[in-house]
């Protein structure tokens, strides 16, 4: 009897051990064929589960996207131009509500791209990109010639490499009203400053290190600045402080499912390794609706300082720092393997981390609100005024 009972129980036990859900290994997004729409869809949908950093905050119902769009992609049975147009339309519809404001889909076959943040901004304000006189017009004719003391003006333009693209890099520095140190730069690529922009930064940092006790204030102008390299944070802000400070937190993915995140790590500014000074005068950062990414991170770092102030308008809303996905098991990824060459079917440009400001607010998708609201207008520009810089001067020199 004992043997029968044991045998029965052992049989039941062994049968039950097989009742777990199957653990299928989800392949990397690039492992799927790049010329088959159902596979491309599956790859993209999986890749978003694994790599997107805002699940739990983002209100997009990603499971619903699967239910709705999988049958539509299954119907795209031929890999040709008309079906490609439909596929791109579906991808855009799936992603148009995502809050990650870095997020961009780059379609390799057609060269098309789609940025949900731009789509939404234009939907609510068709003049989002046109109704500001900054930066080109203000810089060309207003700030260097009206505001900056002529003897101090240093400006120049170089070409720099940002994420593999050559872009013009302009910088302007000088003093305003004799004792306010001003710095403008178009991108965060300070380490790449060349023959024309190098003297601008040399002037700014020399003035900072030698005359900081005589300065009434510092104005850092990142209006229209599209962002760039993270190392510029310590290089710029770190030269104005002598002790490390925390201005927010970042977290990353640490698993393949949507809500797998690491703990929040403090985002810090450290005094620059080659020297820094303790600036106690007001440090004002000017940013606007076209200030993106590193501009916003720098804005938040400066506004955290006891003598820091953000003047301008609400920023773009792309705060999550970004690097290669392999570093943090999340972020940007490529969909589908290419038939020829190194590119895949689609490149998904997305943040590698979520940023939370010191006060606990996450400004991704909504932008950083200014401490003092000021916005340039075409009318003001035509009458020779930069209302935002005016507000900064008034704040420093009341």
């Amino acid at each position: 009897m004992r043997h029968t009972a044991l045998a029965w129980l052992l049989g039941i036990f062994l049968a039950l051990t097989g009742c777990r859900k199957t653990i299928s290994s989800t392949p990397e997004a690039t492992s799927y064929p790049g010329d088959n729409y159902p596979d491309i869809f599956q790859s993209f949908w999986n890749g978003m589960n694994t790599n997107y950093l805002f699940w739990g905050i983002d209100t997009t119902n990603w499971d619903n996207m699967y239910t709705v769009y999988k049958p539509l992609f299954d119907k795209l049975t031929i890999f040709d131009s008309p079906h490609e147009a439909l596929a791109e339309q579906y991808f855009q519809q799936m992603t148009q509500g995502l809050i990650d404001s870095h997020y961009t889909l780059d379609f390799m076959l057609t060269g098309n791209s789609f940025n949900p943040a731009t789509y939404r901004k234009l939907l609510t304000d068709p003049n989002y990109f046109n109704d500001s006189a900054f930066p080109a017009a203000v810089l060309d004719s207003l700030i260097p010639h009206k505001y900056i003391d002529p003897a101090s003006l240093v400006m120049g333009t170089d070409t720099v490499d940002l994420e593999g693209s050559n872009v013009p890099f302009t910088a302007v520095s000088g003093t305003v009203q004799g004792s306010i140190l001003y710095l403008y730069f178009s991108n965060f690529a300070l380490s790449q400053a060349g023959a024309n922009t190098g003297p601008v930064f040399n002037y700014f940092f020399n003035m900072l290190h030698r005359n900081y006790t005589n300065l009434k204030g510092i104005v850092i102008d990142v209006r229209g600045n599209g962002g760039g390299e993270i190392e510029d944070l310590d290089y710029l802000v770190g030269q104005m402080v002598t002790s490390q400070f925390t201005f927010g937190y970042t977290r990353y993915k640490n698993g393949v499912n949507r809500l797998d995140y690491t703990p929040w790590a403090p985002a810090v500014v450290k005094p620059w390794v080659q020297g820094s000074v303790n600036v106690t005068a007001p440090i004002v950062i000017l940013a606007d609706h076209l200030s993106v990414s590193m501009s916003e991170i720098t804005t938040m770092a400066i506004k955290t300082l006891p003598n820091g102030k953000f003047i301008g308008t609400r920023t773009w809303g792309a705060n999550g720092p970004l690097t290669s996905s392999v570093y943090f098991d999340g972020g940007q990824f490529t969909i589908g393997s290419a038939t020829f060459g190194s590119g895949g079917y689609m490149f998904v440009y997305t943040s590698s981390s979520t940023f939370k400001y010191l006060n606990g607010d996450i400004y991704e998708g909504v932008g950083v609100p200014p401490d003092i609201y000021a916005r340039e207008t075409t009318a003001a520009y035509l009458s020779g005024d930069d209302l935002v810089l005016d507000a900064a001067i008034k704040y420093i020199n009341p």
Partner: protein
Amino acid sequence: MRVLTFCCAAALVLLLCSLKGNAQLFLGAEGGPNMNYLTTSNASEPFTNYRGMRGWNIGIPVGYQFFDWLALEAAPTYIQKNFDIVRTGFFTGVYQKNNNTYLQLPINLRFSFGGKALRGFVDLGGYGAYWTSGRIKGTEANILNEVDTAYQTVNPTSVLGENYGYSYDQKYVFNSTKDNRMEFGLIGGAGVSYELFQIYTFYLEGRYYRAMTDQQKHYELNQAPRYNDNYGLTLGCTIKVKKLFSTLFKKDH
């Protein structure tokens, strides 16, 4: 929690029944080390491994001996089911140790065989467990805390040479959307026991706890499941309650 309450009540009923009849009730204490593995899929995470981690468990076995070869046993247990996430290669130094504590109630049948004192046995059954707490300890590369000299010297040889690591050791905060705090599974075990003075039984057992439920709630389509697989070595001692009482009673008279 309801299952745990039910199991405790069942154990209590067994205890009361045995005190009245001829059956042999036994109770005792057991404990030992274990090795836990989280079984999951992470094929899309490069240079990332899930590794087993040591833990320990301590329990109070309560059993009912029907025949010399068959007993029913329940053992409310405090058990750790730990695992480690480790990155390798260029990312060496990035890790997270996950220490998870469960209150577990295994209920199993014990089939024993052999001589009078020295016997072998096999345990088969199931368990219910409640994930009471967790602690995470690790280091992550911190994107907004760069090593400022990294690009001025030689190529960094590790991610922590580019970004300073952020080390943490903190309580795990449960996420009600994600975490499934109830766990059910199967038990298989085998061991040897030695009976002393017909009252005390010492035993050493190898046990396998196989979770059959996901450590996460089902909150997304095509979710990668996570299962605990726990291998333990338990040293224990039980006392036959009735024999003990009768011995004590005889001595008193």
